[in-house]
């Protein structure tokens, strides 16, 4: 019996890839855009809403193309629901900016354009990070946030 002196480093055999798999759309398509900030209301009852548009081909999402309007407190609600019910480490939201809500400021406070843009970017990063998490995808609160017209805060929390 002779022992091999040089290791065989040839590649292992593998199945050739199906061309529709190679060139077709990937199975992990998920894009969420947070855009079009609109400030609604007057005076001290003003608040800003953002358009949240999701496009996906993941089977876990019932609708593959949705568009809803959400405000900052809706994102906060989602973060709290996920922190309570799921085991994941929830990424941070952009700041609450309480200082900006104090009176006697020289600028528009939380309705300042630059601030709204900063917040929009942060919210977009937040929702994309969360929606791509396999465990977060099982939570009803995430689906309600992305796909229902409005958030029912009296919903029954649970898994999809």
């Amino acid at each position, binding site marked *: 019996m002779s022992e091999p002196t040089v290791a065989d480093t040839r590649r292992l055999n593998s199945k050739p890839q199906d061309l529709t798999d190679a060139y077709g759309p990937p199975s992990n398509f998920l894009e969420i855009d947070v855009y079009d900030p609109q400030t609604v209301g007057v005076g001290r009852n003003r608040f800003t809403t953002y358009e949240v548009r999701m496009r996906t081909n993941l089977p876990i999402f019932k609708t593959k193309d949705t568009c809803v309007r959400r405000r900052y407190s809706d994102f906060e609600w989602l973060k709290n629901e996920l922190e309570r019910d799921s085991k994941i480490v929830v990424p941070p939201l952009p700041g609450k900016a309480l200082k900006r809500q104090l009176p006697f400021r020289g600028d528009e406070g939380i309705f300042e354009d630059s601030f709204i843009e900063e917040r929009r970017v942060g919210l977009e990063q937040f929702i994309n990070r969360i929606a*791509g998490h396999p465990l977060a995808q099982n939570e009803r609160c995430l689906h309600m946030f992305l796909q229902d017209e409005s958030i029912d805060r009296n919903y029954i929390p649970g898994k999809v």
Partner: protein
Amino acid sequence: MSFFGFGQSAEVDIVLNDAETRKKAEHKTEDGKKDKYFLFYDGETVSGKVNVTLKNPGKRLEHYGIKIEFIGQIELYYDRGNHHEFVSLVKDLARPGELSHSQSFDFEFTHVEKPYETYTGQNVKLRYFLRATISRRLNDVSKEMDIVVHTLSTYPELNSSIKMEVGIEDCLHIEFEYNKSKYHLKDVIVGKIYFLLVRIKIKHMEIDIIKRETTGTGPSVYHENDTIAKYEIMDGAPVRGESIPIRLFLAGYEMTPTMRDINKKFSVRYYLNLVLIDEEERRYFKQQEITLWRKGDIVRRSMSQQATIASQRFEGSDRSSSEKVPEPKEEKEDSS
């Protein structure tokens, strides 16, 4: 230690008979320094001379005996006082008396059993050394000489590949394959990762080699993990049906053979950790143990010699070299 020049003091030195021809091996000590030591294998004889040099010529050296020991011991760092000796041989070189001049003593430890490999780790070390001692009334004079022992194996008869399908339900399914389960220290890991389902956005994939040193028993078991290597095997997003090849050369990494439950005191095991990282830096991993073994450089000859020595040790030491001896396992059996 001498008292300000009164009386006689001596220096002890150990010299091996085959110091000119014997190979040396590098070994990293506890403080991280790399040193070279004489290399021995199981069954080899350790022989040499103990040189006693008197510091003050003309004066006599009174002593209570001169001896040399060959010791193999395990030392747990959290329990330094207790050395666990698994080999302890002693040869008396001189009876209690006097030395009037510097002298040299021959010694031979014949066909010494060295069952384990020399190991210096994070929480434990296993070492072999010679210790020559001149016993005296107040303080002994002694000298230690460490040697390194390597344990050799041959190509295993059974060496199945590792092939497994793993994943997260509806998210990520892969099939990984490594060509062997037992690799020698200069071997190459050849494998592949086949993607069956990819619903997450993978950014890259790497394979890590993790060394796990386990010390202690029962409730006080302690694992020390150390990532020896990180090797990126894929950069970019794979889709279903893609096969990513793996070719990882082990010779470039500092590793030891797998050691299982050495003298019931410690283990050193190695794992391949396949890690996939997605765009949000989330990590998905699968760990798989591999067995590492040390291949001899000139395997044929040293195995025959070791087999000869082992058989002599087993059946008695009076067999002459011209007698037939059983062949090592992997060759055809001779009827003798």
